[in-house]
C-alpha cells in the first residue's frame, strides 16, 4: 500500500477535522461554566450503563433500539479494525498487539470482527429500510412543532448509512482478498476458520486480482472512514464524538432539582448545554413522548434543541431577535419525558426553564399567567384567595386538625393550593384527613402560614418568586414542630424534597400515598372490605418520573382489593396530564387535543374499567374535566376514596365518586 499517499490523506483529513472542531471547541470554552466534574465514580457508572450499556436503547422502542445498540457495539469493536487498516498503509502485515493471528486474542478478534460486520450491515439495512421505505414518522419530524425539520431534506441520514455500508464492504473486501493473496502464509493458515465471512468473500475473488482488490478494499475502507470522520461534526452524527462525554457530564442532581442560572452570566448557556446541542442526533425519542408535541402545540423538544444548535453554530437567522418563540417555551409541561427518553443525556427541561426566566424577566407572558404570579406574590396561592381561607376546607370535618405551629405533631401535612382551594380536591382532602385521624396518626398543618411550595412557580421561570415562597415556607417550618412532612400534591412533594434543602435543613418528605401504604401495610389501617373494582392508575409525572414513586400507590391499590389494569404508558414512562410547569394557568384552548384527553382515551382503550385512579389534586381536576369532555365509561377517582371504602367506614364508593363528578 502507499504509505505516502495514505499519510497525505490522513494529514489532510486530520487537518480538516481539526479546523472543523476548533470553532466548536471554542464555543464550549466560551460558554458559561457548569460544575460537572464531581463524583467521577458515579459518572463512570452512568457512562458504562447508558453509553456503553446502551440502556435507553434497550429499554425503549424496538427493534430500533436494538439496531442502534448493535451498530454502537459494532463500532466499538470495529474501531480496532480501523486502526489495523490504517496501520496496513505502513506495514502490510500490521496487527494490533494481542490481536495478531498467532496472538492470544487473535482468533476471537477476527471472529468477532466478521460477525459484527455482518450484524452492522443488517442493522444498517434495517435503518435504511426505516428511512427510505417505511418512512418512520419519528425520523422525519412531528407536525406542527417540527415543521422546520420536516421540511428539510433527509439525505444526510441515508448518506451516513451508505458510508457505514461502504466501510464494512471495504473491510470485508480487504480481508477477503488478503486470504486469497496470502493463501499460503502462516497468518492466513492461523486465521483459517476464524473469519467465516471474509472466507465467503474470498471465494468470490479471482486469485489474479486479489492484490488489487485488497488494495481497493483498503482504500475504500480508509478513505470512507476519513470522510466519515469529517462529516460527523457537520451532521447530526457529531453525536458519535460527543454523546459519550455528554452522558459522562450529565447532571448528578436529583431530577427534581432545577439548576439556578449562573449569577455571573444569567441566561447564558453552559458548556454542557452546548454539548447537549452537539449531541442531539435528531432521533426524536424526546418529541415522540412529549405531551406538548402530541397535543399540537408549538413545542417539540427535538426541534428546540436543533434550533438552539443551529443558532449557536450561526446557521440560522433569528426572528425578532429570538431563536425560540415564546409559544415554544411556554408550551412545556416540564413533565421530563424528553429527558427520560433521550439516549444521549440531553437536559431539555432546564434549558426551557432558563428561556422562560428571560421571558418572565421581560414580562412576556399571557395575562392569566401574569395574574397568577401576582396572586402568588401577594396571597401565596394561585387562586388569589386570602391565606386565611386556606384551611377553610376543614370546616366539613367533625374534628380539628392540629395547628403544627401550636402543638408538636409527627407529620406536618403540606396540603398545597389545589387540595386546599379546589372544590373537587377539598373533598379528597377531607377524606384523607378522616382516614389519618381515624388511624390515630399525629398530624397537623400550617394553616394560613402555608404558602404555595413554588414548584411550578420555579418552572414558570419566576426564580425570585420561588425563592420568596421558599423563604416564607421555611419560616413557617421553623415555627412548627414536626418530624416529617407529607404532601397531597406531587409537585409540592418534589420541590420540598429536592429543592428546599438547598435553602436550609429539611425534614424527610413523603407523598400521602407512601404514608397510607405504610399505615395499611403495618396494620394501622385495616381494610376488611375489598372494593372489588377494576381500575387503572395514572402515575403523576412529579411522583413517578421525577421521584420514582410508582410502587406505593400500586401496593395500596392491591391492598384495597382493586384489580389494576395498566395503561401502556405507566410508571416512569407515564404520560403527562398537561397541567405541570405552570401550564394549568395558561390558555390550552389552542391545543388540537389536550394531553389529558389523550390520556383518558388511552385508559378507555383498556376496556371495561370502573375507575381511573389519581393521586394528584391537579390530576383530579384535569382528568375529571377530560373524562367529561371525552365521554368515557369510567369515573376519575382519588385513591383515598378506595381506601375509605375498603375500611368499611365510608359511603359506597359510587357516591364518593359522584361527589367529584363535574
Amino acid at each position, binding site marked *: 500500500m502507499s504509505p505516502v499517499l495514505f499519510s497525505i490523506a490522513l494529514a489532510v483529513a486530520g487537518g480538516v477535522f481539526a479546523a472543523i472542531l476548533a470553532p466548536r471547541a471554542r464555543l464550549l470554552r466560551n460558554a458559561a461554566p457548569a460544575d460537572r466534574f464531581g463524583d467521577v465514580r458515579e459518572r463512570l457508572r452512568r457512562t458504562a450503563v447508558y453509553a456503553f450499556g446502551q440502556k435507553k436503547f434497550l429499554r425503549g422502542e424496538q427493534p430500533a433500539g436494538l439496531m442502534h445498540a448493535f451498530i454502537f457495539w459494532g463500532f466499538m469493536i470495529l474501531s480496532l479494525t480501523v486502526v489495523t487498516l490504517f496501520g496496513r498503509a505502513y506495514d502490510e502485515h500490521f496487527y494490533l498487539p494481542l490481536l495478531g493471528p498467532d496472538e492470544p486474542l487473535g482468533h476471537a478478534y477476527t471472529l468477532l470482527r466478521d460477525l459484527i460486520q455482518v450484524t452492522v450491515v443488517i442493522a444498517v439495512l434495517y435503518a435504511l429500510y426505516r428511512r427510505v421505505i417505511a418512512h418512520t414518522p419519528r425520523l422525519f419530524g412531528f407536525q406542527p412543532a417540527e415543521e422546520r425539520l420536516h421540511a428539510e431534506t433527509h439525505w444526510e441520514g441515508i448518506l451516513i448509512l451508505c458510508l457505514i455500508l461502504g466501510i464494512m464492504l471495504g473491510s470485508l473486501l480487504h480481508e477477503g482478498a488478503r486470504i486469497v493473496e496470502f493463501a499460503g502464509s502462516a497468518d492466513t493458515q492461523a486465521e483459517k476458520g476464524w473469519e467465516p465471512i471474509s472466507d465467503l468473500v474470498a471465494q468470490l475473488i479471482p486469485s489474479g486480482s486479489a492484490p488489487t482488490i485488497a488494495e481497493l478494499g483498503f482504500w475504500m475502507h480508509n478513505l470512507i472512514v476519513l470522510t466519515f470522520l469529517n462529516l460527523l461534526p457537520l451532521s447530526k452524527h457529531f453525536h458519535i464524538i460527543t454523546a459519550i462525554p455528554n452522558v459522562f457530564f450529565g447532571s448528578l442532581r436529583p431530577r427534581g432539582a432545577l439548576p439556578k442560572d449562573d449569577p455571573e452570566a444569567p441566561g447564558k448557556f453552559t458548556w454542557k448545554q452546548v454539548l447537549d446541542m452537539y449531541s442531539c442526533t435528531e432521533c426524536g425519542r424526546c418529541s415522540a413522548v412529549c405531551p406538548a408535541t402530541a397535543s399540537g402545540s408549538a413545542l417539540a423538544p427535538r426541534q428546540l434543541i436543533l434550533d438552539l444548535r443551529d443558532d449557536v453554530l450561526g446557521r440560522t437567522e433569528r426572528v425578532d431577535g429570538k431563536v425560540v418563540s415564546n409559544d415554544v417555551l411556554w408550551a412545556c409541561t416540564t413533565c421530563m419525558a424528553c429527558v427520560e427518553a433521550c439516549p444521549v443525556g440531553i437536559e431539555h427541561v432546564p434549558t426551557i426553564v432558563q428561556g422562560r426566566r428571560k421571558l*418572565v*424577566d421581560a*414580562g412576556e*407572558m399571557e*395575562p392569566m399567567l*401574569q395574574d397568577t*404570579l*401576582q396572586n402568588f*406574590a*401577594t*396571597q401565596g396561592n394561585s387562586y*388569589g*384567595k*386570602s391565606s*386565611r381561607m386556606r384551611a377553610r376546607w376543614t370546616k366539613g370535618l367533625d374534628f380539628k386538625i392540629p395547628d403544627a405551629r401550636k402543638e408538636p405533631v409527627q407529620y406536618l401535612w403540606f396540603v398545597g393550593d389545589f387540595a386546599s382551594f379546589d372544590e373537587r380536591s377539598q373533598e379528597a382532602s377531607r377524606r384523607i384527613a378522616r382516614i389519618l385521624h381515624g388511624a390515630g396518626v399525629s398530624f397537623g398543618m400550617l394553616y394560613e402560614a402555608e404558602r404555595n411550595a413554588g414548584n411550578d412557580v420555579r418552572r414558570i421561570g*419566576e*426564580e*425570585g*418568586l420561588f*425563592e*420568596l415562597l421558599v423563604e416564607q415556607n421555611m419560616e413557617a417550618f421553623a415555627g412548627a414542630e414536626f418530624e416529617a412532612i407529607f404532601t397531597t400534591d406531587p409537585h409540592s412533594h418534589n420541590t420540598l424534597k429536592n429543592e428546599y434543602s438547598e435553602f436550609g435543613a429539611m425534614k424527610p418528605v413523603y407523598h400521602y400515598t407512601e404514608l397510607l401504604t405504610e399505615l395499611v401495610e403495618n396494620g394501622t389501617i385495616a381494610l376488611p372490605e375489598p372494593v372489588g373494582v377494576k381500575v387503572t392508575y395514572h402515575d403523576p409525572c412529579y411522583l413517578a418520573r421525577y421521584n420514582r414513586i410508582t410502587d406505593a400507590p400500586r401496593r395500596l391499590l392491591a391492598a384495597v382489593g382493586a384489580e389494576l389494569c395498566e395503561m401502556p404508558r405507566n410508571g416512569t414512562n407515564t404520560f403527562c396530564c398537561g397541567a405541570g410547569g405552570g401550564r394549568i394557568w395558561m390558555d390550552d384552548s389552542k391545543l388540537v387535543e389536550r394531553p389529558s384527553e389523550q390520556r383518558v382515551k388511552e385508559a378507555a382503550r383498556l376496556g371495561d374499567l370502573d375507575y381511573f385512579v389519581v393521586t394528584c389534586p391537579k390530576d383530579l381536576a384535569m382528568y375529571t374535566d377530560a373524562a*367529561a369532555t371525552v365521554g368515557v365509561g369510567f369515573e376519575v377517582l382519588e385513591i383515598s376514596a378506595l381506601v375509605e371504602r375498603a375500611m368499611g367506614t365510608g359511603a359506597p364508593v359510587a357516591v364518593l365518586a359522584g361527589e367529584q*363528578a*363535574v
Partner: protein
Amino acid sequence: MDIVVPMQQTVDLVEELELNDDGTDVEREYLKFVANEWDEQALEEALLLKEATGGTVTVVGIDETDVDGTLFSALAKGADRAVKLGGDFESGVSSHRRAAILAAWLGGESYDLVLVGVQSPEDLDGQTGVILANLLDVAHVSVAIGVQPHEGGVKVSQEFGGGVVQELALSGRAVVGIQAARQAPRYVSISRVRAAMQSGALEEADAADVDASTGTTVRRLYAPESTSHAEMLAGDADDVAARILEIVRERGLVKTGG
C-alpha cells in the same frame, strides 16, 4: 417630561374586611395592604410616557403598611426615584390629608405632571388627585385612559359613559387621574424587585404636618345586605345548561321548533 406618581396602599379587597372595635373603620392593624390598582395603572402610563418622551418618573408614597414593597416594585419597573414620606398613618389617611401632604412635598419638587390613580377603594372623602390639583391650583383631568405628548404639554384622553372620549390639551402643570393605562401594567419579576431593594434607592423624607380635616364623620361601616341572591343551579355543566335552557325558554327567549 418629569412625572410624579403618588402610590397609595389600600386594604386588599381579597381579604375578609374586619372592622375595628367601634365599627367606624376597617381593622388596619391586621389587614393586608396592597398598592391601589389604579395607582398601578397610573405608574404604567407614566412609564409609557417616559419611554416616549424621556424625562423621569418619581414615585412617592406615604409610610403606609408595606409601601416599601410597592415603591421598590415601581423602581424595578423603571421608575427613577422613589420617595417615602414618614409620619403617623396607622389610623388611615383621608384623601384630603393625603392630598395636602403631597401638595406640601410637591412644593419643593420640580415636576411637569402628576399621574395618579383615578380613585381608590377607600377614598370616602373624594379622590386624591382632584383635591391635590386644586390645592396646587393646577389643572386636573379625571378618568383618563391615555396621556400623550402634545405641543409641549400633554393630550389627555378622558373617558365618559357610553364609550365617548374627550381629548383635552393641558399646557401647564397638571394632575391627571388615570382610569386605565394604554396597556396592562407590566409584570416585574421578584428578582428585579429584590435587586431594587438591595440597591437601597429609597429616599425618605418627613411628611408635612398638615391641617386637613375632612369635615366628615364615619358613624359606622357595615357590609351591605344583599337584597337578593341568585338562585344557584345545581348539577354538572349539562344539568346547568338544561336548566338555563328551560328558564330562557319559559320567557320565550328561545325560538324553538316542535
